[in-house]
């Protein structure tokens, strides 16, 4: 007997692009096209199309936790949507044995006018829970979400944090045999994220199958055993997680020096649009390599299409193996935090100066994040750029030996001869 619960065979999804800028046609266009094409065959098949996912084949065994990683636009979300049956494949097929619960976005179907209690039931039903099941878990859900006192208040009066916590709590208490999770961990504060991660690893320990998409490499490393790496809609690699993360963080098409984003990197309705990320040497030139003994600047350029309150823009620095080194936000400084409680629409640059004598020799990965704390993550790219650090002249380089650890800070030493 085979214990494969998900078998995906050469699945592909093609989208038409360009011809439907507004997302839909008008009847007039359709009629005009129908008249123009009378007698001709299938004019709609022409036009520009794009394969969001193609030739993707893999199996997932029962109880396995499979991670799916890849850059923005690599096809991760499309793949999950196909498996969650939200959209139909254009070619290929997949077979799924078991009840599927998908967490493609928390709070789906929440109605602002309904109370927390009512929304728990409604959302539960939408996610595929039976009523008796929700009855049974109701208290647990409310406790997990920490909104006990407001459970009979319409959710439109909730803070966004409460709203998200309640939404995640419902989703987290789904007990499908197969759970499909997409980036839900991008919401909420660190404390709540920790709780969510804990919940997810419990799910996995109970022997249920999980497909997990995330940009959060530490979550991927903690929760999954195997990973698919997607690149431009194809599987670039399927391997044990550490290996896959290593590959994802360094190989492939990651840029160095400067990274630019097109308009398609965020959803059309996103108020935040990344433009470019650059590493600059002390002379202000774009640099792929920096010297350990010199400071360098990382600048992130972005557009806001409307005023955003509570926006913070941050950098992640991690090693090529995906181990995080530090995270820093442009409003970490309380004074700056006060000054930029909200940012008007327009073009911005957030610049971060990384001091000299901090990093050791090696390749590092710079990631960016734009979010509103506890409210929403607008944009994340965990490996936007790679950065090579040259340790020539770094402290201690008179000994030509490799040093352990990614950092090579210049620290103050005292050598004192103590009196006997």
């Amino acid at each position: 007997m085979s214990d494969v619960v998900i078998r995906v065979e050469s699945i592909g999804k093609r989208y038409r692009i360009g011809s439907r800028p507004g997302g839909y046609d008008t009847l007039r266009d359709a009629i005009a096209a129908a008249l123009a094409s009378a007698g001709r065959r299938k004019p709609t098949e022409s036009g520009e199309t794009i394969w969001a996912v193609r030739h993707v084949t893999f199996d997932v065994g029962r109880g396995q936790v499979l991670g799916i990683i890849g850059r923005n636009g690599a096809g991760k979300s499309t793949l999950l949507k196909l498996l969650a049956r939200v959209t139909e494949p254009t070619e290929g097929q997949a077979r799924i044995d078991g009840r599927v619960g998908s967490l493609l976005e928390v709070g789906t179907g929440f109605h602002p006018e309904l109370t927390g209690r009512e929304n728990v039931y409604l959302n539960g039903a939408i996610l595929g829970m039976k009523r008796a099941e929700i009855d049974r878990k109701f208290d647990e859900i409310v406790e997990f979400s920490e909104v006990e006192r407001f459970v009979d208040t319409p959710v439109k009066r909730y803070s966004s944090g409460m709203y998200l916590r309640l939404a995640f709590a419902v989703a987290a208490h789904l007990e499908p045999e197969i759970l499909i999770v997409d980036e839900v961990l991008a919401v909420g504060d660190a404390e709540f994220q920790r709780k969510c991660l804990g919940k997810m690893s419990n799910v996995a320990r109970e022997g249920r199958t999980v497909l997990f998409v995330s940009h959060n490499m530490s979550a991927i490393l903690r929760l999954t055993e195997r990973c698919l790496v997607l690149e431009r809609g194809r599987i670039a690699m399927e391997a044990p997680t550490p290996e896959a993360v290593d590959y994802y963080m360094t190989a492939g098409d990651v840029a160095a020096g400067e990274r630019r984003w097109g308009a398609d990197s965020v959803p059309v309705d996103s108020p935040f649009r990344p433009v470019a990320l650059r590493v600059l040497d002390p002379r202000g030139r774009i640099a792929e390599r920096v010297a350990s003994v010199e400071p360098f600047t990382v600048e992130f350029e972005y557009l806001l299409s409307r005023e955003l309150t509570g926006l913070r823009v941050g950098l992640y620095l991690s090693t090529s193996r995906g181990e995080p080194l530090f995270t820093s936000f442009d409003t970490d400084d309380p004074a700056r935090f006060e000054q930029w409680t909200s940012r008007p629409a327009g073009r911005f640059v957030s610049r971060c100066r990384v001091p000299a004598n901090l990093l050791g020799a090696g390749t590092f990965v710079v990631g960016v994040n734009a979010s509103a704390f506890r409210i929403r993550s607008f944009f994340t790219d965990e490996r936007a750029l790679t950065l090579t650090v040259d340790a020539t002249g770094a402290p201690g380089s008179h000994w030509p030996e490799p040093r352990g650890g990614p950092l090579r800070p210049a620290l103050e030493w005292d050598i004192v001869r103590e009196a006997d």
Partner: protein
Amino acid sequence: MSPAAELAVDRPRSEVSVWIRPSRGWGFADLKELWRYRELIYFLIWRDVKVRYKQTLLGAAWAILKPFLSMVVFTVIFAGLAQLETDGIAPPVFYFSGLLPWVLFQDGVTKAGNSLVASSNLITKVYFPRMSIPLALVVSGLVDFALSFVVLLGMVAFYGIRLTSAAWLIPVFLGLALIASLGVGFWLAALNVSYRDVGYVTPFLVQAWMYASPVVYPATLIPEGFSRIVYGLNPMAGVVQGFRWAIVGAGAPSAGMLFASLGMGLVLLISGIFVFRRMERHFADIV
């Protein structure tokens, strides 16, 4: 085999296993699946009812006031000023009994037509039978209907009208009203996903449709025979006239007209389901 058997003991092998593959051609509604999702449909109905009159001063009274106020206007304009005949029925009862199934249809079609677009956030995130959305919205109209129906019974008593044996047919006409609403609702909902024109056309369509139905005038104004059968091709003609007849026992619709309405209602429903199912596979991509 034994590990599998052990597994089966503590967690039964799933009852559901699905193939995900491109679908081709035309298909009918998957009734079994709709049945499996009955709780979701129930919750969608419940949500619609619950939300409908939230933050209104008069709340559920609106369910009655909407047809009641129309009835008052019709009585003043059509019976009072225009002197339209009402099959010998007291005008308020005539209009109110016609408005009840009509409002059910009108609200059902309007809400269902907009339903998929309004639920785009659901459609692009979660799988469930898409049909449950317009279905729930049409069915939830029954709650308003039931409230107004109580008022109608009160009016019937007030005017001293005795129910006849035709009253047994009330559920039949109600069923036919639902069939027609679902049929048109499925058509509009599916088309609206691709063509937002539907949103602009619907109010006009509904208004014209009302005047094509015997809401403000009796169907007996239409010459008997062939014309009346053609008139019956509007399923709501049979529904409105039949419903009124079932309540007050006057103005019986002809059999030809009734069968035309029933036939057309079924054609609309079945074609609506096929079109919906056909377009359904692209809803999430283009909505």
